[in-house]
């Protein structure tokens, strides 16, 4: 039924006309809306209506409120914990609500659980335990998740291991996709790409002409995603052979047309093309539906993130050239937990170690504490995040809650036999 007709003809309650009820519901947060599903059948139909869901999400996106999902281990219990942080820019000063701990799908205990990405309120997780690797799509706001089925694609090239994963939304198809780069274990240069779509619940292999190569990633950040999806296009940093020389490129793959392109890295003011293999800091981001590259090089110090400062480049509409945005100055002692970069704010962590001594002055143990801050890059100020109860390392991801359903998903409390979904060799991820 036409949504406006639905609004006029449905009697939600006797006091208010349908279109006013809908206007009010469009501003309600997801948790409250979920409760409305049990109020009456008309409300239930409305809240499940895809048109209402996308209108509601569009409203949420317009508000100047940034949500941040942080995953890490609880500092005492060591359980994998996910917190939701909301910062609002509509108040006179930024307000950070105390972190909300979320119900995580089937009690994750794996060390290498990773947030692959988030889009429209859906979060993609990569779970690794001793039996294998599983991928899960999760909507934390409505407490539903779905394990992704194993891929039936068998490589003709030999045994495969997963090099990287990306997750995103394809606005053209109104579909959610996971892209996976697979490396042939026995070869240094043979790769394959697979794409999963939520609507078909299946994987398909992308025709490869053998050109797709290595993913470049700083070795000390194995948890950082190397693949980013922006508007249905997957990007990652790779190496291409040109005129018998290896040069670094940003690879782009349009996931429906399967068109593959190689984008040259940014060109510095002196006219030199950046060689991404020399990066000390290297990261791709989806910032407001544009691709951002964070880059720094400092060959003297092998140091991490903030200690070097870095440059931020944005890919232009032409998908060939880059615009330099700004430089982040180095700050000592902090670790940038990339994955969250919103409106010039980044999540940074500071680890404090305190040596504890007994009354005789003998060293007993080292107490560790992790402080999380929101660092405003343009102003250079820090805002501490209290009560997160997490310890390093973390991952953080930009996230906005939505009612978007996980097709074929189940409630987070449900026990699911993961063994059917485990794939690949966990050692090589």
């Amino acid at each position, binding site marked *: 039924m036409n949504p406006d007709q639905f609004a006029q003809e449905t009697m*939600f309650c006797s*006091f*208010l*006309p349908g279109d006013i009820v809908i*206007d009010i519901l469009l501003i*309600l947060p997801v948790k409250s809306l979920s409760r409305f599903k049990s*109020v*009456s059948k008309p409300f239930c139909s409305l809240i499940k209506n895809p048109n209402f869901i996308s209108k509601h999400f569009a409203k949420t996106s317009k508000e100047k409120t940034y949500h941040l999902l942080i995953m890490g281990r609880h500092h005492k219990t060591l359980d994998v914990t996910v917190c939701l942080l909301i910062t609002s820019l509509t108040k006179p000063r930024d307000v950070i609500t105390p972190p909300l701990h979320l119900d995580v799908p089937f009690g994750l205990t794996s060390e290498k659980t990773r947030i692959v990405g988030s889009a429209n309120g859906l979060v993609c997780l990569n779970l690794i335990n001793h039996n294998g690797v599983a991928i899960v799509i999760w909507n934390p706001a409505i407490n*539903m998740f779905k394990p992704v089925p194993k891929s039936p694609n068998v490589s003709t090239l030999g045994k495969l291991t997963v090099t990287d994963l990306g997750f995103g939304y394809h606005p053209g198809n109104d579909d959610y996709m996971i892209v996976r780069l697979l490396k042939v274990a026995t070869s240094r240069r043979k790769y394959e790409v697979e794409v999963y779509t939520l609507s078909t619940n299946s994987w398909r292999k992308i025709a490869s002409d053998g050109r797709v190569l290595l993913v470049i990633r700083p070795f000390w950040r194995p948890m950082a995603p190397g693949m980013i999806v922006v508007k249905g296009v997957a990007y990652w940093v790779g190496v291409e052979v040109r005129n018998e020389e290896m040069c670094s490129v940003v690879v782009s793959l349009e996931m429906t047309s399967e068109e593959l392109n190689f984008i040259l890295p940014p060109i510095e003011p002196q006219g030199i093309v950046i060689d991404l293999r020399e990066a000390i800091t290297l990261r791709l981001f989806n910032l407001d539906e544009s691709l951002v590259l964070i880059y720094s090089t400092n060959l003297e110090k092998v140091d991490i993130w903030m200690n070097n400062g870095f440059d931020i480049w944005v890919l232009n509409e032409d998908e060939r050239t880059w615009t330099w945005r700004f430089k982040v100055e180095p700050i000592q002692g902090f670790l940038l937990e990339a994955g969250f970069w919103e409106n010039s704010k980044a999540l940074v962590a500071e680890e404090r170690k305190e040596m504890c001594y007994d009354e005789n002055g003998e060293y007993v143990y080292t107490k560790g504490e992790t402080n999380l801050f929101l660092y405003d890059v343009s102003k250079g100020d820090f805002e501490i995040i209290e009560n997160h109860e997490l310890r390093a390392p973390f991952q953080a991801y930009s996230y906005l809650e939505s009612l978007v359903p996980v097709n074929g*998903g189940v409630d987070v409390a449900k026990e699911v036999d993961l063994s059917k979904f485990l794939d690949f060799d966990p050692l090589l991820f």
Partner: protein
Amino acid sequence: MSSEKLLTLKTRDGEEFVLEEAMAFRSLTIKNATSNYTINNTPLPINVEINTMIKVIEYWKKHSERGISEDELMNFDKKFFKLLHNSELFDLVVAVDYLADKGLSNAACEQVLDKITGKTPQEIRDIFNINNDCTPTSLGG
């Protein structure tokens, strides 16, 4: 001496009343209606009942006061809405939607929002006077 132009309005239940044009024009509906034709002293009909209109005018009057501070307005709003029963609030929401006054509309909707946020399904049914037609099996995901 005030040289404000006055407007005569007639409610749905037949009551006539007079309002300064400037204040009445807070309602886009009234503003558009008067620009469409010239009124030769015939009252402009509006689809609102007198009791609800009285509340709207009370709100408009306070929010038009000169020199009133943000704090005073906030206090007024708090008391204003507190005194309304749910049914009066809903009537107000419908009326203001018709009158097309964004400011009051947002304020009234926020009040409704406050009333329903965090409430259980049964509490929500009580507020809106809805019958429970959901069986346990129909509540799936």
